[in-house]
């Protein structure tokens, strides 16, 4: 803190508050100190790295999981240094656990469900790829609904759906939510036909959700299978962002490590960073040899 306190151009205001703000959001502490250039650099670089990693990893590399089978506590500690952007992982961990315990795959979350469906349809002549609009309604007797899709002749076809469905749980680490439905005739008779595929999952229901729970290792294997080394690279980006924010937090608390930086730059040899550092009196510190010489004299 000595350098910053000596240099009146650097106003740290309340350093503890600035450090807390810098932790919560990279650049915010420096904006509070009115060091706007630094706020921009930290905000863009650190948040940019973090968000790039998240996007590369399909919003999955940051998650909090701590159980007997699998612990991601060290990884999360590093990522959590980015502050608020990593905090939802704590909430998602709790939501995922609760959902694992209570989810019923044959019941809708709400009264109705309307979504775009992408998957396969089997009308007795083998599975065919299909895409269309699905609407389901939860009744006391079960689930009923309709599926509209573009038929082969160019028109719109509609199928009536009823009976048992299999709907993947609401909170789960995937942007797609698996769904299986049974097709029935207009008079409600079940036929040997069905829909199998997925509907989009809400961003808030898959972002930063733990990749698995005790007894459920599938999501981690699935994401590694889908993204491969890109997922590991994405996790590294988020770690780097977290570690870089430690420098930013310290800068908000103590000021720049080597002073303002407008001191004349030495042109040759040695550790330049050390040479740049002024002493509290504002004069350059004597080099080792010079100090010894003056002592001998």
């Amino acid at each position: 803190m000595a350098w910053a306190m000596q240099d009146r151009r650097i106003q740290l205001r309340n350093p503890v508050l600035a450090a807390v703000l810098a932790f919560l959001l990279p650049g915010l502490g420096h904006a509070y100190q009115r060091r706007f250039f630094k706020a921009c650099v930290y905000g863009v670089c650190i948040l940019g790295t973090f968000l790039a990693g998240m996007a590369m990893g399909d919003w999955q590399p940051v998650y909090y999981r701590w159980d007997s089978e699998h612990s991601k506590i060290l990884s999360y500690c590093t990522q959590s240094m980015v502050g608020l952007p990593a905090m939802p992982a704590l909430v998602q961990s709790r939501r995922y656990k609760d959902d694992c315990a209570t989810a019923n795959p044959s019941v809708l979350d709400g009264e109705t469900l309307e979504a775009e469906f992408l998957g396969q349809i089997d009308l007795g002549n083998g599975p065919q790829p299909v895409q269309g609009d699905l609407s389901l309604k939860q009744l006391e007797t079960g689930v009923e609904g309709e599926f509209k899709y573009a038929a082969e002749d160019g028109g719109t076809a509609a199928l009536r759906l009823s009976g048992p469905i299999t709907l993947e749980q609401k909170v789960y680490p995937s942007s797609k939510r698996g769904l299986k439905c049974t097709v029935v005739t207009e008079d409600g008779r079940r036929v040997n036909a069905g829909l199998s595929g997925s509907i989009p999952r809400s961003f808030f229901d898959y972002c930063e959700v733990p990749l698995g729970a005790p007894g459920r290792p599938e999501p981690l294997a699935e994401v590694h299978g889908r993204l491969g080394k890109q997922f590991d690279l994405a996790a590294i980006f988020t770690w780097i962002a977290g570690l870089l924010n430690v420098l930013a937090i310290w800068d908000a608390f103590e000021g720049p490590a080597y002073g303002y930086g407008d001191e004349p730059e030495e042109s040759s040899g040695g550790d330049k960073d050390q040479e740049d550092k002024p002493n509290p009196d504002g004069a350059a510190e004597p080099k080792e040899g010079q100090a010894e010489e003056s002592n001998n004299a």
Partner: protein
Amino acid sequence: MLEPTWFVLPLSVVIALVYNTSRYESPQRILQRSGRMFLLILLGMGILYGALLVLAV
């Protein structure tokens, strides 16, 4: 996806900028030092790459 090796460029820029921003206050000195550090990182990795390439051949 882009060849992962190319990610070294934006990562080096970010690391050089953030490190030097935490060392100095003057924007001019920060940019100057960051540019130099970025080139040094690339040079260092280039030397390592060359050494590994020689060992591998």
